[in-house]
């Protein structure tokens, strides 16, 4: 393995001598986190709300006031009767049409469960989901306040009542979508470094012709591959640390779970993306080709990672494809450790899967890389 030392020395020298590299390592992560966290936000404001109040009670009135008071909703229509055609939704002047049923107040006072129904303009599924969950959280708040204030009026046996609102659950109590995005962006960053840089680095040697010179030397495949991959592994870990620091200092992303789990996972995960990069480099002959192939995988991996669209919202067949997506597992680990405070037992399946993934992809790349051609 003594040749490995020389390859590593050479790679590090070349990487840091490349004037394009330092910006990639330092500027790109900062820019991406800073800009994308704000731009790729799910935060939805100015939701156009229509309320159909069929109850006309004091209670329904105070619920509506709560909506008006919130910074997220603009009450644009107020009606007393249902419009079955949903004209305002169709026109697009309204995002949500909330209907307060008859006997809303009466049922609450009698502790009978009530159901508020909301029609949501779901052309933009993401906004729809978020708007609905905001709407729901206001109802939740309303209910809690009501219980607190009217504890005497309610049936003594049950100190609460139910307002149903069928909804998705979001893990983001403060509704700060930066918390949701930043962990995903970190995964994106680390993966980009791994896939693009590794594949381009090796293909560059093919382009210049130095790979032939290496292939006539007694370097073993293992030495060559480790020598190529290890420097980017280090850079990947460095970028992750930098990114997590920014996440903490700039975005105050909560770090509920043990951070070492993220680093441990990244150590394994990087071998997967570097392996993919290596595999791409065996397929491509020019840096352009390798870029193109890497982008192809990148787009698929990002869109099917659950970073933007929750995986549960995808059709079943797409959900199955996400099982092959390494990004998915890292994003899950990132979000669940940082936001939910997951521990080893929660994420051990992800470790297991990504471990197997790493072995498979690297075996494939090692087999595909040839010093002697057929």
């Amino acid at each position: 393995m003594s040749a490995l030392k020389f390859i590593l020395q050479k790679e590090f020298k070349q990487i840091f001598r490349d004037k394009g590299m330092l910006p990639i390592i330092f500027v790109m992560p900062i820019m991406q986190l800073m800009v994308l966290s704000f731009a790729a936000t799910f935060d939805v404001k100015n939701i156009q709300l229509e309320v159909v109040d069929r109850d006309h009670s004091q209670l329904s009135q105070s619920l509506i006031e709560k909506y008006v008071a919130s910074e997220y909703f603009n009450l644009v229509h107020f009606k007393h009767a249902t419009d079955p055609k949903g004209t305002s939704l169709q026109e697009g002047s309204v995002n949500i049409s909330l209907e307060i049923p008859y006997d809303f107040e009466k049922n609450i006072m009698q502790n009978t469960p009530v159901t508020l129904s909301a029609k949501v303009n779901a052309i933009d599924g993401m906004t729809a989901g978020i708007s609905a969950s905001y709407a729901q959280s206001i109802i939740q708040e309303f209910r809690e306040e009501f219980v607190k204030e009217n504890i005497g009026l309610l049936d003594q046996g049950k100190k609460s009542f139910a307002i149903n609102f069928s909804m998705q659950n979001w893990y983001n109590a403060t509704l700060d979508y930066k918390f949701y995005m930043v962990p995903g962006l970190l995964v994106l960053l680390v993966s980009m470094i791994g896939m693009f840089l590794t594949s381009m680095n090796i293909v560059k040697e093919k382009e210049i012709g130095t790979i032939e010179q290496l292939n006539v030397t007694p370097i073993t495949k293992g030495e060559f591959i480790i020598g190529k991959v290890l420097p980017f592994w280090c850079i990947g870990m460095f970028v992750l640390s930098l990114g997590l620091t920014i996440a903490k200092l700039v975005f105050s992303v909560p770090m509920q779970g043990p951070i070492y789990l993220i680093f441990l996972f990244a150590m394994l995960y990087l071998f997967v993306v570097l392996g993919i990069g290596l595999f791409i480099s065996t397929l491509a002959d020019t840096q352009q080709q390798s870029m193109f192939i890497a982008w192809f995988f990148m787009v698929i991996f990002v869109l099917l990672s659950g970073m933007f669209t929750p995986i549960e919202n995808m059709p079943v067949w797409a959900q199955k494809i996400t099982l092959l997506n390494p990004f998915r597992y890292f994003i899950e680990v990132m979000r669940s450790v940082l936001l939910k405070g997951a521990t080893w037992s929660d994420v051990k399946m992800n470790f297991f899967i990504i471990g197997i993934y790493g072995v498979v992809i690297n075996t494939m790349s090692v087999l595909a890389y040839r010093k002697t051609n057929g």
Partner: protein
Amino acid sequence: MNSEKIIETTKLTKAFGSFKAVNEITFDVKKGEIFGFLGANGAGKSTAMKMLTGLLSPTSGEATVAGFDVFTQQEKIKKNIGYMSQKFSLYDDLSLLENIKFFGGIYGLSKEQLNERGTAMIERLGLADVSHKLLKEVPLGWKQKIAFSVATLHQPKIVFLDEPTGGVDPITRRQFWEMIYEAADNGTTVFVTTHYMDEAEYCNRISMMVDGRIAGYGSPKELKADFKTENMDEVFVKIARGENYKLQ
């Protein structure tokens, strides 16, 4: 030069589908010899050389290089040879010293050997001033000489040179051949492909490929006598045109 054979091939063939790039070539190279490997573009020289250096697996036939089989012991061959291609294949973004250290290192030279041979080489080339400069800043004329020196740094038994003087001016070419002779004097076998017929004259023996076969084989003197010409240029033209020639 002695008569020990360091490269020996028997009906060595490389087929790509139905096309035989190298078609049953049989020849040998003796230890310490400068062996010229000639042929027009596309005649199969590079393919043959790639098989001998372990970059390409042969289809059929037999061959040994430095005593190792080209089918099964390619990695052992690689330990014993040096290789320099027409394309400059050292690292432009490393300095001369760093290239020496890298290539010497992967051939397993010790730190002392690297220092000693590196210094000697830089002195011989007269490049002490630029040894710390990145190679992309070194003038083109030097690069081939540097590449040759790096390719022989680990003192291989055989050095393969693939059109080493392509695109180089006559003076540098002459200096380059002086280096080749020096290496041969030190016992290194030199296997060289070239398009320049004057260079063919410098070789101890040559083989000439036409359409994947060896169409001429022997010392320049013998070939000139056989074709009744005064220079290698005409030998080349006659062979390439397909004049009958009996292999010795």
